[in-house]
């Protein structure tokens, strides 16, 4: 690979000597910068991992050391005695429901907006685009008002339903369905399939890459969501991981400044994300770039 990039430079004979020196210096600079950034980006996670297995006094006295001395499972054991397992379960339940509903509803709506012809379609899409521009953070109080008004405050529906459709997800699916050649649907229609059957048995199976992207984004979005869970409940038995762990800093679970506990809790919350990320990185990247086009 490197030979192809350096060839044109080597051929211009007058600058070849300068060019080669230039390249090796440049390579060293790039490697040095890379090493520095790699440390800045990887070290915090390593510290988190190691500190989770330290005793608190060791964590406070040797925050930079990479060897727990002594090795301790104290943080793990103490987390198990608290509501932490419950929060983890809540996060799993909420994430599963939100992801399943989002994938289904967003692909249905995306398909209708892309392919089905009905009165009012353009208006619906225009409104959707406008709603997408409303920043989520200013909706916290408004959403609380409605959740409270509907009488579902402090319940699983309050945690799940408001997240069950995501305007950006509808947008992703609409874009995807617009790329599918219409001839396939026509063939299904000639064979006598109605719109629902065409959608479920013909179009949806073709949409696998878009569905995976949407699944990943929904999983990540709902697993990491904080704001919505703050305003949807104040009952600690309904906390998800983000909400529960945020309470750790104000001394929740008697943690105070028990750093190994907070590091262990954060670590356990990050592991599912990390696993999904390692296996589906491609789709994360796609999601990020969709965001760019949309903006």
């Amino acid at each position, binding site marked *: 690979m490197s030979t192809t990039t350096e060839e044109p430079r080597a051929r211009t004979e007058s600058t070849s000597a300068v060019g080669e020196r230039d390249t090796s210096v440049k390579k060293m600079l790039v490697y040095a910068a890379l090493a520095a950034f790699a440390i800045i980006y990887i070290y*915090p996670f390593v510290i988190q991992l190691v500190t989770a297995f330290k005793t608190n006094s060791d964590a406070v*006295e040797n925050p930079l050391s990479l060897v727990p001395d002594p090795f301790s499972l104290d943080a793990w054991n103490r987390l198990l005695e608290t509501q932490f397992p419950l929060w983890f379960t809540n996060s799993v339940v909420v994430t599963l429901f939100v992801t399943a509903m989002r994938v289904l509803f967003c692909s249905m709506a995306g398909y*209708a907006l892309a392919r089905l*012809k009905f009165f009012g379609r353009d208006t619906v899409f225009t409104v959707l685009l406008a709603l997408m521009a409303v920043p989520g953070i200013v*909706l916290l109080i408004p959403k609380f*008002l409605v959740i409270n008004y509907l009488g579902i405050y402090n319940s699983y529906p309050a945690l799940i339903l408001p997240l069950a459709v995501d305007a950006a997800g509808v947008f992703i699916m609409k874009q995807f369905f617009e790329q599918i050649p219409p001839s396939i649907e026509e063939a299904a229609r000639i064979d006598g399939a109605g719109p*629902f059957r065409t959608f479920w048995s013909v179009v949806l199976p073709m949409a696998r890459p878009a569905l995976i992207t949407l699944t990943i984004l929904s999983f990540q979005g709902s697993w990491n969501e904080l704001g919505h869970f703050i305003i949807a409940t104040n009952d600690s038995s309904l906390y998800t991981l983000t909400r529960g762990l945020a309470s750790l800093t104000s001394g929740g679970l008697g943690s105070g400044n028990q750093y190994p506990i907070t590091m262990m*809790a954060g670590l356990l919350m990050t592991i599912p994300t*990390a696993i999904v990320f390692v296996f589906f990185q491609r789709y994360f990247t796609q999601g990020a770039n969709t965001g760019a086009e949309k903006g």
Partner: protein
Amino acid sequence: MSSRDPQRQPVAGWLFITPMLVILGLFLAAPIVMALWVSVSDWTGRGSPFISEVNFVGLRNYQDLLAQDGLSRQDFMTSMRNTFYYVLGVVPAQTVLALTLAVIVNQKFLRGRTFFRTAFYFPSVVSSVAISLVFLFLFTGTGAVNQFLGLFGISGPNWFADSRGVLHVLGDAVGVWDVSAPPAFLSGTDVLSLSLWEWLSGPSVALSAIMLQVIWTTAGTFMLMFLAALQDLPTEVDEAAMVDGANTWQRFMNVTVPHLRPTILLVVTLGIIGTWQVFDQVYVMTDGGPSKTTLTPAYLSFQTAFTNLDLPSGAAIAFLLFLLIFALTQLQRFVLRDRDEARQRRAERRQRREQRTTRTRSTTEVSA
């Protein structure tokens, strides 16, 4: 037969979008309308906001935030000041860092490029709560960061407990002013419930720590955008510049950066819109303290509504923040559209000019 008509599926169409309409209507459209009403009412939070005891108070809640000297305006302006410095620091830094990371990871000779790209992007997909917990530990008084600084003989501040303004400290260090006795005309002149001295504080040390964290976290996402743009870079232009004897830095500034201009603009505007919404880090790490120096509009809105139980004021702050972000979004659209149009106009002009010159040339050739 008409139901089989491929051009018309009104029933199916509306059925397909019903779940979306119900959920977005209930939890996005209705909340906006309801909050708009609450923000112009005197609702105490008890019972329904639609009963007859709740009165319309006009723009009073907004006035308290903008036009009436008092604690509400002081807090709101403090949050605006903090976030202004926050945006001013975070956006350029994360853009430059993202571009730097993208250029490094894009080097063809590099081994393990995928690994490093993954490492730099990973913080963007991790929960902000988990990252905040780690940074709280890294930035404690005796934490990893200060121990590291100690290796170079620097004694670091007690980050999250330090409310000193960075500009105050810097100005004091270079002798512009004395922090213990600020100039009277600065501390004596009040603008919108804050003295000029307070306006000029810069971000506090605590807020700076949050800024470092956010820069570190979000650069990865923007790095991916820059990487996509860098891979579209036409190699011929770069090689031509190389043949002309331009060095790496010159080529970067004169070939790469102009090519990336649209992406830079996008990253900057997305960054501005995103940074004005900062909430999670403040909620997890500082609660707006020390001395309200990490208070942001989003967090103030939340705190006013749920801690002080003043939902109308909280809703009013949320709407002001919304208006600000909406204006920024429109500005972004305007800047981006303007640029495209300007480029198109330039291209058309050039084309016309070329046509004219070729026409005159051909006529002169003919006459010759």
